[in-house]
């Protein structure tokens, strides 16, 4: 299973991972609090009834609105009126459609020149997860391809080794394929997907047809790509509870890290370390490969890469244009000296960050349903919680008061895991190799259909329902997958019922 164990160890040593090897202790809690937190976050072994507060996955931040397609769009329930205003300002900017420069509304221009979307919400549909193109609707995408190449020389190898960069961008097209461009410019190309059926036979003889995607780029606008280009498809993730994931104490995440699988349970769990502008190493938390240490970084990168809007943090007014895309670099940008140094002047990034930090997690439904409780028992029994860690108590030092010291139930360990050949994108990014993905949180997953009108899961939306998503799990999750395959139909249904209650 761990074909690349040696490589992992080497990276671990070079990368200053001694941090993770120590037994970390939270510094935001006194001894008494620490004991309370440890006891309340210990996994339950009683499945006869729901755990106390299980119904409120985000603690006091949990939203209690009527279930509808708006379910992911409400603010954390524990914001003050003033913070609600800040949230709403962020929401307005999140929905805002940016226009190309120059335009009469100077504060709103600067789109592209190359872009995937004109506004945040156009991929983060209803703040829920995006999806691959539906049949017959090539443009209806809330998903794109990331691009990179293997290091070509010693300088690039050193840059990777030193964490100065997380990857080497494709020389002509940059780090991402933008499938749209402003009027005077060609788009870079479009993502093409071919699906092949892969039948899986379950223990009871049921056959489930998975669809295995293969990706390519059509209609290249700027000549051929490097022959060794690596493509990684990424669907827009759901936006709920991000501030709480940011507020999980790093010590609680590192305590589960086991990069070399020293405990021999077949599950490693590797932290993603990102070098920030000051050269300090930060724990990566966001993105499918945990490539961003904070919501702010993730938002600034998305503004620049996805919309082509620069912010004070990622100040590239031409977005993802490369030197090889000369026509792109010649186009005007939306920078207005009178408004600030970037196309999205302060406080745009602050407000969008605040918004993204405070999208509430809806309360659970049916926590005491016997079927859900049986499914929960199976979920624990199959070892799913080895990576989908049920609960945490967030740090008292979290930036926002609404995120501080809450008992939360996200079902993720925030670590990177080898998910096997089937899910591999074969494109390394920082600490994540071509097989590794960060465990995504499961809260809200049962509301995907209500919010997004589909049930397409995993990093590229290949799974068409929760059963398919489970069956795609390989690598470190292979053992759990096998347990699932051997379950009876009613056990599988119970497990899915549990997931749908999240």
């Amino acid at each position: 299973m761990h074909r690349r164990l040696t490589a992992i160890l080497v990276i671990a040593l070079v990368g200053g991972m001694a941090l993770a090897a120590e037994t970390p202790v939270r510094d935001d809690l006194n001894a008494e609090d620490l004991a309370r937190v440890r006891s309340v976050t210990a996994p339950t072994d009683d499945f006869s009834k729901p755990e106390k507060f299980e119904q409120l996955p985000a603690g006091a931040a949990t939203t209690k609105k009527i279930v509808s397609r708006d379910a992911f769009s409400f603010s954390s329930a524990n914001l003050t009126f003033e913070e609600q205003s800040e949230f709403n300002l962020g929401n307005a900017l999140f929905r805002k459609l940016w226009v190309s420069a120059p335009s009469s509304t100077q504060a709103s221009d600067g789109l592209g020149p190359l872009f995937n979307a004109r506004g945040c919400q156009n991929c983060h549909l209803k703040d829920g997860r995006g999806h691959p193109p539906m049949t017959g609707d090539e443009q209806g995408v809330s998903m794109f391809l990331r691009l990179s190449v293997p290091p070509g020389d010693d300088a690039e190898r050193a840059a990777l080794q030193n964490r100065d960069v997380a990857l080497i961008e494709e020389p002509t097209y940059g780090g991402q394929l933008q499938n749209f461009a402003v009027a005077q410019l060609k788009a870079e190309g479009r993502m093409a997907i071919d699906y092949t059926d892969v039948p899986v036979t379950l223990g009871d003889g049921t056959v489930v047809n998975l669809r295995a995607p293969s990706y390519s780029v059509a209609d290249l606008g700027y000549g051929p790509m490097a022959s060794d280009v690596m493509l990684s498809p990424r669907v827009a993730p759901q936006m709920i509870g991000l501030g709480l994931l940011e507020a999980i104490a790093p010590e609680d995440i590192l305590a589960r890290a086991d990069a070399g699988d020293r405990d021999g349970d077949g599950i490693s769990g590797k932290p993603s370390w990102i070098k920030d502008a000051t050269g300090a190493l930060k724990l990566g938390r966001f993105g499918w490969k945990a490539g961003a240490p904070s919501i702010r970084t993730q938002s600034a990168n998305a503004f620049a890469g996805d919309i082509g809007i620069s912010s004070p943090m990622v100040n590239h007014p031409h977005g993802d244009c490369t030197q090889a895309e000369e026509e792109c670099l010649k186009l005007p940008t939306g920078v207005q000296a009178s408004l600030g140094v970037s196309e999205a002047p302060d406080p745009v990034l602050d407000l969008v960050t605040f918004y993204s930090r405070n999208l509430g997690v809806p309360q659970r439904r049916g926590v005491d349903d016997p079927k859900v409780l049986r499914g929960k028992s199976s979920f624990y029994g199959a070892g799913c919680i080895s990576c989908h860690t049920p609960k945490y108590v967030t740090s008292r030092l979290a930036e926002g008061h609404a995120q501080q010291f809450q008992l939360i139930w996200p079902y993720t360990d925030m670590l990177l895991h080898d998910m096997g050949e089937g899910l591999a994108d074969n494109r390394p990014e920082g600490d994540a190799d071509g097989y590794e993905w960060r465990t995504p949180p499961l809260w809200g997953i049962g509301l995907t259909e209500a919010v997004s009108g589909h049930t397409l899961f995993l990093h590229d939306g290949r799974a068409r329902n929760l059963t398919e998503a489970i069956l795609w799990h390989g690598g470190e999750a292979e053992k759990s997958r096998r347990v699932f395959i051997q379950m009876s139909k009613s056990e599988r249904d119970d497990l899915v019922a549990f997931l749908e209650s999240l």
Partner: protein
Amino acid sequence: MLKRFAGGLALTLPLGLGAMTSGLAAEPTPEAILATYADIALAGYEDALTGAEALDAAVDALLAAPGEATLRAAQDAWRASRPNYQQTEAFRFGNPIVDDWEGRVNAWPLDEGLIDYVDASYGTESDENGLYTANVIANPKIMIDGAEVDASTVTPQLLSGKLQEAGGIEGNVATGYHAIEFLLWGQDLHGTGPGAGERKASDFDTVNCTNGNCDRRGDYLKAATTLLVSDLKEMAGNWQVGGAARTALAAQGIGTILTGMGSLSYGEVAGQRMKVGLLLHDPEEEHDCFSDSTHVSHLNDAIGIRNVYAGRYVRLDGSVVEGPSLSDLVATRDAALDGEVQALLDEAVARMEILAKRAETIEKYDQMIGEGNIEGNAVVQSAIDGLIAQTRGIERVVALLKLDNVTVEGSDSLDNPDAVFQ
């Protein structure tokens, strides 16, 4: 303006003895306060319904005999329908039933290219929102999420079931006041200069049709007003005795009133509807952008907030609904605070009236938020400040009544050891 018995009482009582006054002035029960609140909601939605029915009838007249006079009459009916609806917005945030429903009738901003033809300056730059310029009035077939949708007949069901938020894009607003507003006025192509939308009546004239598809444009308009009437009827029903929203109040408690006041005041109007426009100086960030009547909406939101605190609502026909109020309750416990909060609510309304007067006499709201318009910007900022100041008063009422769950719903924080670690 808000004369109160309790206000006079305060003069006779030393400060700090608020708690002792409960034996003197009869403190209204939460049930009585909530009954007044629900009565005002019912009256408000009934009045909004009356306005929508008049609008629907004016649209019938427009479509029967398209002309500048019937178009003007329909626009006037739309304007007349707005103030009472906007006053009901005070009920939105505290009541999940209203909040869940609100997007059908008052969603904004909308990407009007979904509905009808737009000016070239609207842009054809597409992205994930393939419906940005779908123009359903001109297209009997449209693609939504890869599936072909039959739009050959424009019906209320097409609007509410297929087009509203199509593809998960919130800008795809197909129903409600602002979709109707767009159809009656057309795009406002004046930027931050003077002027509203300039729809010609001939856009609805099937004989001498301008801009094509006048029959379908008429069908769309009629479908939208039909939906507005049925949606408001549904919400009025929810506030009847035995209706779902009124029934839910008992469990929600009087915190509902304060949640609605604070969230509308600070978060929604001061924040999303006013501050964003001022920040971006963008005329698109205007609530009623096609008709240039944003000031009416903002003013009536402020009035609606004051209504629910005072327990008093002046109906469309001039009659008054009133009864035991939150103000009465606060006055029995801390008369000075009640006086201050009343003054803050009055001040917020007064500042909105200044803004509205400027909009009627000097320049419209979208001009006021224009870049470099120092005087206009200041008037908008002053109204925002009034809303923020009144929210501070609302927070003091929350503290007085010890309603922790108003802004901190589900106070099951781990800081409450009794809750988690008992």
